[in-house]
């Protein structure tokens, strides 16, 4: 199980190349989600954003989420890598992955990781708009 906070840009596919567990024939299914910064949010153009976290608590919280997913879906392994700091459009914000014997478990676990992360983990977004900076007030629903 891996949880990492990154202050520099990272390539999700390179991370996965390095991290794929040696499952010895037991892994049938890998589900992955990658969140990327868009240059548009709620109708306004966003040039850059700053993602703040709570060093220590954020990592602890992500570790708890990963442990919950691994236990609940009997995963072979799971991964969260999350950017913080200044982020530009098209850069990866978050990578989650779940490795399981079967696809239903892998999909359910990957979805759980990203939804829990968004609703509970201590991260705060400040967007740089043409008209100035703004803290994002709250996450819109998962939809």
């Amino acid at each position: 199980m891996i949880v990492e906070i990154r202050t520099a840009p990272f390539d999700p596919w390179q991370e996965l190349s390095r991290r794929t567990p040696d499952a010895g024939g037991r892994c049938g299914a890998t589900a992955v989600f990658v969140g990327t910064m868009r240059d548009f949010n709620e109708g306004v153009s966003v040039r850059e954003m700053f993602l703040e976290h709570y060093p220590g608590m954020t990592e602890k919280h992500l570790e708890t989420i990963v442990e919950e997913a691994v236990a609940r879906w009997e995963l072979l392994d799971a991964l969260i890598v999350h950017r913080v700091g200044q982020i530009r459009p098209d850069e990866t914000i978050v990578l989650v992955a779940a490795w399981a014997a079967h696809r239903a478990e892998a999909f359910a676990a990957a979805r759980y990781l990203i939804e829990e992360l968004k609703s509970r983990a201590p991260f705060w977004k400040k967007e740089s708009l043409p008209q100035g900076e703004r803290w994002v007030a709250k996450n819109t629903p998962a939809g």
Partner: protein
Amino acid sequence: MAIVVKFFASLRERMGCAETTLDAQQVKTVAEVWQRVADGEPLPANLLMAVNMEYAEADSEVRDGDEVAFFPPVTGGAHDR
């Protein structure tokens, strides 16, 4: 020892400080910590609180050496919805 108090995001900017310390003898709960640091401003309804990096409530106890944090609702994760 003392209690370390941390603020994050928009609250950090509003408080004009990221971290302060309090004498542990003056406070017994998270709500009392807030009263000491907020100049009498009532605890905002949607403010989140943590003690030693675990989510806590206003009436959670605090002890000497604890780290208490206040922050706005989380808005993390990907910028995708």
